[in-house]
């Protein structure tokens, strides 16, 4: 979280979205991103959120959000029903990330996925020197109670994209301070110094 309360990847995601687009946000939380998109981009937004409290907060904000999850509810959406489908900081918590990604590509013309990079150097150091599963400010859960059951690195995600036939239109990595890493840097550099990644995909 940044001091103004908006997650660093939200503005990045918003910048990728054309005005008045049809958007599905999978894992809407309390609706911060959808509200940002509605107010700044005038999108026609829909959401899916797991928790009752989250959905209630979204509904109170005037957002159209259903209680459900990425693993079970995406199958009911029509092909290419949305211009953009967003999965922000959620893919690592899904039961079948590959199936979910394929569903997203089916539903959306473009797919935006943001996730924490498990190849980030601080996490590698934790594992290398302390020999413990990393617990950080952004990934605060212990291994036994984390909702994040399918961590991946940026490199892993790129390979999954290849496997499901997704084209990476743009990719951005953010360092520990939420700053974009240089665009010309090689993948290994991103994979080491990127704390988060935001991908824009199509198929």
């Amino acid at each position: 979280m940044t001091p103004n309360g908006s997650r660093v990847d939200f503005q990045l995601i918003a910048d990728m979205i054309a005005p008045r687009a049809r958007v599905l946000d999978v894992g809407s939380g309390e609706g911060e991103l959808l509200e940002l998109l509605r107010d700044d981009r005038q999108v026609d937004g829909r959401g899916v959120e797991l928790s009752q409290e989250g959905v209630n907060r979204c509904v109170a904000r005037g957002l159209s959000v259903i209680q459900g999850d990425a693993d079970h509810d995406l199958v009911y959406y029509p092909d290419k029903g949305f211009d953009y489908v967003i999965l922000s900081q959620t893919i690592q918590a899904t039961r079948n990330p590959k199936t979910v990604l394929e569903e997203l590509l089916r539903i959306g013309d473009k797919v935006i996925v943001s996730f924490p990079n498990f190849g980030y150097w601080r996490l590698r150091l934790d594992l290398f020197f302390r020999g413990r599963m990393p617990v950080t400010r952004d990934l605060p859960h212990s291994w036994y109670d984390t909702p994040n059951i399918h961590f991946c690195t940026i490199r892993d995600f790129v390979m999954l994209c290849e496997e499901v036939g997704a084209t990476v239109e743009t990719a951005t990595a953010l360092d520990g301070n939420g700053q974009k890493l240089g665009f010309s840097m090689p993948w290994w550099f991103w994979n080491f110094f990127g704390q988060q990644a935001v991908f824009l995909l199509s198929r």
Partner: protein
Amino acid sequence: MAVKTTPQTFGEATDPSSLVLRFGPDEPLRLEAGIDLAPFQIAYQTYGTLNDARSNAVLVCHALTGDQHVANKHPVTGKPGWWEALIGPGKIVDTDRFFVICANVIGGCLGSTGPASTNPSSGKPYGLDLPVITIRDMVRAQVMLVDHLGIDRLFCVIGGSMGGMQVLEWAASHPERVFCALPIATGARHSSQNIAFHEVGRQAVMADPDWCGGRYLEEGRRPEKGLAVARMAAHITYLSEAALHRKFGRNLQDRDRLTFGFDADFQIESYLRHQGMTFVDRFDANSYLYMTRAMDYFDLAADHGGRLADAFRGTKTRFCLISFTSDWLFPTEESRAVVHALNAAGASVSFVEIETDKGHDAFLLDEPEFHGAVRGFLTAAARDRGIDLP
């Protein structure tokens, strides 16, 4: 309890303590059964004031044994309106802000034409000569009422259970007339299990010798025992095992030990008997047959070629569906099926499942999370519809 019942009539059925809209022989209600119902009448209540733009009307659809007295003292029982937890001045459906309409459904017994009404061709109560009424028929009659009130587009149609079925039918058949829809604790069709429970209730009514083949009003009799048993069985389905256990457990009724007889030893028995006995004072047995049948026949997907999504194709209506975790009459899966169809149709839909042990009846009770969801949805929708506080 004072009941306005003479041998030939059922109290409020012919002479309701409500506004009544009458349609003559030239304005029939075309029923799904293929018969024109005429003349007929709709008994209804309104609360609040219709604004100049006629944009603030909320239509409340009542459930199986509900009626139009949603937010006023009931004329028969003297109890508060059945949805006063939600509707009234300053409440979530704020009658200072919205013009709230609630009509007794066709086939009911509180003043809209039903089996206890007089059949003009015989001069006697309809009884079973009234054609079977469907959810779609109920909504068609409501459309005629809304037309009469000069309202093109309702701000909101809201209802739970059978009321929720009417909400779905409104949204499917008259999408341009519904800005937002709140179907609560309901489904797009009645399940086999629900039809089964209804059949038990109907058979209980029909097994009562006082039912007289449906002509009890003419005979000056009433199948109170049968109707009470029907209500007792149905009432169990409105609650949950957990709620029954919390409320009654195995507690004994006004006694220290079992009597080794068939008196109401347990509190739950006494409670159900009371529910059955008080129900017969305010409800007509034939009407109960018609209401349960209407729900059984409801299958919105079947009305649209078997695909529920086709019922909502191209809709601009905003939906908010709400279900309750312990509701086993309309379990969450029923609401979810509607949500998935709305998603497939590209509709604007919100859905929340409220955690509660109070069962199906939770929609009538004070459930803060439920009320929070309704408040949030209505507030945002009213803002977008441009409905201000007066």
